């Protein structure tokens, strides 16, 4: 495939307000999963990766004005991350050749929960009603940067921003854009907490991906955006990484659960390797979806064994740091994958104690430095069988 370069990255999550702060937290093996303090919920006993910053403070960080701008928390998080990514990427590209592919699942739900009574009664002001849908963050980001062409929002549950990255890469590949800002944002909501809780898959003590005693997800919030550029416009000194492979597949198996042997995941990983033109042995590190649920980690672990056989490369899930940031997760983990390549690092799983009896491999348990990391596979799997796999490579 024609080269797609990453020339900018921006991220905000429970472990930092920038890519630099994210790297520091990962190096220090510091989790952002903690008790919920910024909004009211009966589910405070379930810790989460909250961005410890009020909406008012986020307005300031996002270069917005609470009096003038009507912005959801999701949009504010998105603006903070998108601004960092765009600052990093210095290329001059014709306005007609720039696009935006954003992702979200909960959109402005946080605002709606706060004002639920007026909204359900139909007495809320019209300018606020519109905050509920998915497009708010993308419209605010497009407005901020003056992006006009093919601005869209992808929503495929937990694989949303991985799929946004794929759509953006394909815009470059098919020649309809030279530069695409891609990523996703989601604010933590009572809606998502209660939704995952009704499925009984939230962890009471913090997620433990790939552990025999794993007991569920820790939700998180945040945003992550990347700048993708065609070879013709990317300045060599700005290139962080190359997106070498990708796959979007659907398991078509169950409304929420993945199949026990992860056929859908196998399909996605093999297809991504195929687009990258890489053998399985070429992968240096796998940033797993690894949510910490009984079903996902077993299914994903078996899928990894199926593809990689007896020589499984180092695997970890970084959701123990950030929590599961839903639509931001794919892009956040893409940035973590890029950091692994740039800084020659392998990030360990947090809170790991006991190997899963069903799997032959252990996740990475210690920080390793000065490791040659050349190709990283990043998995993202969503409800509805929406599977995505991305491969990042040293440029």
């Amino acid at each position, binding site marked *: 495939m024609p080269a797609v370069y990453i020339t900018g990255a921006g991220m905000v999550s429970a472990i930092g307000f920038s890519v630099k702060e994210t790297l520091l937290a990962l190096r220090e093996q510091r989790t952002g999963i903690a008790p919920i303090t910024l909004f009211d919920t009966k589910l405070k006993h379930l810790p989460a990766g909250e961005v410890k910053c009020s909406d008012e403070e986020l307005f300031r960080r996002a270069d917005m004005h609470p009096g003038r701008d009507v912005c959801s928390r999701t949009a504010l998080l998105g603006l903070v991350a998108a601004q960092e990514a765009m600052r990093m990427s210095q290329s001059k590209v014709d306005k007609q050749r720039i696009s935006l592919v954003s992702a979200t699942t909960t959109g402005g739900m946080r605002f709606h929960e706060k004002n639920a009574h007026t909204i359900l009664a139909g007495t809320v002001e019209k300018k606020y009603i519109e905050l509920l849908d998915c497009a708010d963050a993308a419209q605010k980001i497009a407005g901020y940067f003056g992006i006009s062409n093919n601005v869209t929002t992808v929503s495929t549950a937990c694989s949303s921003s991985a799929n946004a990255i794929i759509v953006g890469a394909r815009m470059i590949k098919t020649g309809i854009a030279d530069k695409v800002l891609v990523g996703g944002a989601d604010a933590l909501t009572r809606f998502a907490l209660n939704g995952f809780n*009704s*499925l*009984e898959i939230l962890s009471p003590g913090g997620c433990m991906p790939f552990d025999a005693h794993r007991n569920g997800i820790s939700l998180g919030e945040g945003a992550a955006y990347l700048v993708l550029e065609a070879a013709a416009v990317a300045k060599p000194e700005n290139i962080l990484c190359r997106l070498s492979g990708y796959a979007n597949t659907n398991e078509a198996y*169950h*409304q*929420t*659960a993945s199949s026990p042997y992860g056929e859908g995941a196998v399909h996605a990983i093999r297809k991504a390797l195929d687009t990258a033109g890489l053998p399985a042995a070429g992968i240096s590190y796998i940033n797993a979806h690894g949510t910490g649920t009984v079903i996902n980690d077993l299914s994903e672990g078996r899928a990894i064994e199926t593809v990689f056989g007896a020589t499984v490369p180092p695997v970890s899930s970084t959701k123990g740091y950030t929590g599961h940031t839903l639509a931001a997760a794919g892009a956040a983990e893409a940035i973590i994958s890029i950091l692994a390549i740039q800084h020659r690092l392998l990030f360990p799983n947090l809170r790991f104690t006991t190997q899963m009896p069903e799997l032959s491999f252990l996740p990475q348990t210690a920080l390793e430095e000065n490791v040659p990391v050349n190709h990283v596979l990043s998995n993202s799997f969503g409800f509805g069988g929406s599977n995505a796999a991305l491969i990042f490579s040293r440029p």
Partner: protein
Amino acid sequence: MEKTALVEQLKAQIIEALLLEDLTPGDIDPAAPLFVEGLGLDSIDALELILLLEKQYGIRVEDPKERRDALQSVNAMADYILSHQ
């Protein structure tokens, strides 16, 4: 409540909770497995049945193995309720 009456009540409650609009209580064999075979229910239905036990009978089943046993069939559900009330 006597078991036969409880079984009949459960069938009606299951039809309502799982939106099995096309079925009547007479269509459900109380001895048949509820999942995969029999009614062909799935994991989302299982959560609804756990919720049913909690809301209608005040019984909370936590342990996964106990859940599997309690939701084996309508008869099993009735036995579980009778032994936990």
